[in-house]
């Protein structure tokens, strides 16, 4: 049986990747993918801790919630991006500075 550490290392790599994507990408869709990375890293951690820790299914349940949450989040975010695209004809986040004081 694989130990806890590889899971955690994978999750850490995923989190760092997600953050790196969000920071470096200007495309809104790409940033959304970065967010998915982070969410999934969290879900992976939850499942891994559940499996090697308490033993109950609470971690897996939380992971399921995270998946649902990610889906909901993606829906909302995409709706925002669609509106964004409607307004300024691009999904480049840096162009969205019309509220800038």
């Amino acid at each position, binding site marked *: 049986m694989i130990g806890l550490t590889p899971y955690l290392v994978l999750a850490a790599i995923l989190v760092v990747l997600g*953050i790196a994507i*969000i*920071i*470096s990408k200007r495309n809104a869709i790409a*940033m959304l993918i970065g967010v998915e990375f982070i969410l999934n890293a969290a879900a992976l951690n939850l499942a891994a801790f559940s499996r090697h820790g308490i033993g109950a299914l609470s971690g897996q349940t939380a992971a399921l919630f995270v998946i649902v949450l990610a889906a909901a989040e993606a829906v909302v975010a995409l709706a925002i991006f669609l509106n964004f695209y409607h307004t300024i004809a691009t999904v480049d*986040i*840096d162009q969205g*500075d019309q*509220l*800038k004081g």
Partner: protein
Amino acid sequence: MMPYAFIIAWLLPLAGFVTLVFRGRRIGEPRSGYLAAGLMVTAAAISMVCAIRWVVGHPDSLNVSASWLVIGSQVVNFGVHIDSLTVVMFTMVTIVASCIFIYSIGYMHGDPRFPRFFTYMCLFAFSMLGLVLSDSLIGLFVFWELVGLCSYFLIGFWFEKTSASNAAMKAFIVNRVGDFLFLIGIATMLSMTGSVTLEGVFNQVRQGAFAGHGALLTFAGICLFFGAIGKSAQFPLHVWLPDAMEGPTPVSALIHAATMVAAGVYLVGRIFPILTPGALLFVAYIGGITLIGSALIAIVMTDIKRVLAYSTISQLGYMILALGVGGWVAGLFHLITHACFKALLFLGSGSVIHGCHGEQDIRKMGQLHAKMPYTSLTFLVGTLAIAGVPLLSGFYSKDAILASALGFAWGHRAHWVLFALPTAAAAITAFYMLRLYLLTFRTTARDAHIHEHAHESPKVMWVPLAVLAVLSICIGWLGKMPERHSLGEGEYKYEGGRGLVGLIAEAQPTWAVSWRMQEAGHASSHESVAKESAHAEHGFHTAATIIATAAMLLGVILAWLTYVKGLIAPARAAQVLAPVHKLLLNKFYFDELYRATFVAGVLQLAAFGKWFDRVIVDGLADGSARWVAKTAFFSGLILDNRGVDGLVNGVAQAALVGGNIVRRGQTGRVRNYLLGLTTAGAVAVVVFIWIW
């Protein structure tokens, strides 16, 4: 009814004044004169009717009074007091003023300010009559100042001439000195007796308001007398009167000879009962010094009006001396007779000046009798009257004065000079008046040009002269001094007076401080003293008549020898007596003395005041202004601009700078925030692990 008749007569000139003030220029030249003269003649007629009724009816005195001012509990009444002296004075003033008003219509003919002249004259007549009628010291003082003001207006009537405006100022300022002391005297009376009416003051004094303060009463009397010194041009305040001759001649006649200057004598007559023997002696000596000094100056004067001016001062000195030696009736009688003949002489001199086209120097006249007979004749009457030729009015009054002076000198041997001075002055008076007459109207014509063009004045001018000449001759006739009967305690009664003298004597005070003090000084009973003095007075009268006539004759003969016979050459006499002549020509250097002391002193004071103002007061003001400016500069530019503004701007600047710094982090870019967030998270984890 009678006081009201007098009040109406008094208000007539005021009506003239008010009318002329507002409508004078519209009324125009001849008519404003007619108006003023008409009102004055009406007033004279009313007062003459009243005077006749007074003589026939012989009422005592009449008083009308109304409260005028209330100061705290002190009520100042403004009232009219009429006794026989008031009646005589009132009638004299109105008659003389009428003559002069009529004369002025001719004299002022062609003057551009003709209506204004009559405006002032009306105001003067009103004030003078008010002064005569007034029953209180305050009322007297008010009208006293009013006549002084009119005098100022009229002396400076031709104010284009610097000498005239200077003379007006001189008269006013010199009078102020006297008036100031007069006011102190009134204040002393008010504070000691609580009354300002003459009657109230007398009653209080009689009841001992000054008991234990004899010196204060003397002081108050002398202060009041100083008012008279100023107004009646007595030594040492006589300097204004000769200069006052710069005014038009009718003014000189009315104000500076007949009426206003007599106000001082009238005042002394009114306050006589409260004058102590000491004050009276002071009065007498002032009169004595004045009468001899000015008579001497009159000898050398060459300006016709100035000779008359000094003669006026001298005659006023006579009156003052008479009052000082207790010759109350004599002094006031001389006041009346003098008013007539001095007005006549002044109007005569005005007529001469008019006829000679403005020439006033008697050295350039001569032989004018043929050219102006009426003026010459009336002038001669005036000259003889003032010289004291028997049967003319001046003779009687001067005689009475000399009798009083002799009586006094007899009783007080140490003061013999009080008789010697008026006697000597009587001779001098006769001399200089004849000199004036002879040089002007007789002898040879010394300036052919003036003589050729001289002409008699119009009827409107010589008729008043004739009226005054008749008065100068007649008013002394049938007079008889009343007998004095002592009632004890300084109280007397009089009986058996007749004529003008008798009428004046009716108003004589029946009680006086000096009399009571004199009686207290005598060991014997007052009964015998009174009897003695009554006898003595009679004796003195005869002696005085003889002495006065002799003195007059001496003067006349001397003038005759000098100017008609030519036995004494005036030029040679002047050479022999060069120092005296020079002293007299310079009027005893009084003007120079005053200029060197008072005028220079005042100028010094003014210069000091100017320096003080410029350096100290202005320095203080400038210094504080400079200080304020500096402070303002500091507080404005430094404190406010740099301090307060700096603080406010500094806060704003700090906010701006801080904002600019902080805004750099606020990019609005999610990835920047995220980078910051993760960096912070990472640092936190590292620190957390490291601490752990």
